[in-house]
């Protein structure tokens, strides 16, 4: 009799403590709450979104070329550059033909101000331009590089920026987040002769909030 009462007490205590334990476990814990985030469900999605399924996307109007590098294992396009270079092709002037002295001023590149690289290591023309074939660029390994694919040249020094640009953390897409990936060229934003953005006044100003 006494024994069974003791047993009963033990089981009561045991079940009570189990109940308490369950209650504690079920309570929302602050540390746990911050760890479960909608980001976890996002990261579980590994099926690529069909970017062509967005029906209202129009083809980009600007001239583009297929990039010679890959983006996330797939191809992408970049804005073309050559059509924006005023006096391309360069070989129409840079050739064996003789030039009259009176045309010299017009034909030189007096408007080009080079402000690329730090003092002491500033770049000159042939650091990027091919010394013989003026219609191309040349990298430090002596490979010819097309003006439309200047990222191959810029990337040899600015490799971090190029890595980010390939991934999408540097530069930007043209007009659409969906559809086929078309991105800005290096030279769409940066003047290759003076790549740093000039100081200027902001486009507008802000008034205090209401």
């Amino acid at each position, binding site marked *: 009799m006494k024994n069974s009462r003791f047993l009963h007490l033990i089981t009561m205590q045991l079940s009570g403590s189990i109940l308490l334990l369950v209650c504690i476990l079920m309570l929302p814990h602050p540390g746990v709450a911050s760890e479960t985030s909608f980001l976890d469900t996002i990261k579980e*999605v590994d099926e690529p979104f069909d970017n062509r399924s967005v029906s209202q996307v129009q083809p980009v109007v600007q001239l583009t070329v297929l990039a010679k590098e890959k983006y996330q294992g797939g191809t992408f396009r970049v804005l073309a550059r050559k059509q924006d270079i005023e006096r391309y092709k360069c070989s129409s002037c840079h050739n064996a033909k003789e030039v009259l002295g009176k045309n010299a001023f017009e034909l030189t590149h007096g408007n080009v101000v080079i402000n690329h690289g730090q003092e002491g290591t500033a770049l000159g023309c042939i650091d990027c331009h091919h010394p013989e074939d003026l219609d191309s660029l040349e990298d430090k390994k002596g490979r010819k590089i097309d003006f439309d694919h200047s990222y191959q040249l810029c990337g040899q020094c600015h490799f971090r920026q190029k890595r980010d640009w390939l991934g*999408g953390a540097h530069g930007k897409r043209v007009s659409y987040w969906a559809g086929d990936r078309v991105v800005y060229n290096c030279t769409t934003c940066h003047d290759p002769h003076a790549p740093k953005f000039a100081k200027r006044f902001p486009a507008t100003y802000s008034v205090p909030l209401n």
Partner: protein
Amino acid sequence: MSCNKTDQEKNILEDAQSETSSRRTFLKGMSIGAAAASAALVTGCVPGADAAASGELKLRWQEFFKKNYRLMTQEEKDQTVARLERLAALKNNQELQIGSEPPIPGVLYGYAFNITRCEGFMECVTACVKENNLDRKTNTQYIRIFEMEPGKLDPSTGDGQYYHEVPVENKFYMGTQCFHCENAPCTKACPTRATWREPDGIVVVDYDWCIGCRYCQAACPYYGRRFNWGDSEVPKEEITQKQHYLGNRKRPMGKMEKCTFCIQRTRKGKLPACVEACPTGSRVFGNLLDPDSEIRYVLKHKKVFRMKEELGTEPKFWYFID
């Protein structure tokens, strides 16, 4: 009773050119023309003399008694945007294209802002004002750019009203706007359920159900919401005509508004106006549910943080550094 449609339309147009309407005239007209309006509702045909006023009245009547946008079927949504387009044509002689595009399946929008790259040119702000038909009179802006001291990451310590040549050495620039929280406090504060999170993650406002109590503005920890103290004024030639019901359509006086990630653009696959305008590429926008998207690349490979993350609001707007 005349049912001549072309006559009726001509009358409506003539009247629209001569008369400007307001809530007061509307209510006044209601008491006088209530009988005419109900006749119009029943028969769909308006007595000749009151044709113009009643035509507009009928539209306003139907607009007044429409449902909350979330409860509408797609057909009802199409009807209301058609009415809004017609009313804009009648009242202000504007040719608008108001859309009601639904969210795209498999899309959750996310945004990232590069605080290393932003140089404070504020091109994003002007593009946003233009795209979203923001009130020019009170200079409403959804985006704010703060000039920040190095080492500080709280915009309240920065200068949000700078106007000098930028960038300034040893300062950085940080933009804020609505962060489209997954767990948005503003939507919980709304007593009329006029604001909610859409399935693609955009937090929107139904301007016709907003009562202007500004509870949501008080609830937002990011100062992401703006209030219309007056009727918004936009020069007619500057109005963006491509609009969305939940986006950049006209906000009447006493309504709340906010950034909608340019819903009228993004649901058609376009980038928001701020992203397209940014001259430095500091703004990254894309689909969080696409592992190949730019935004996912930033989240995976960059040092990112969110503002006031400890509040648990889960904003879908990240800051990152190069």
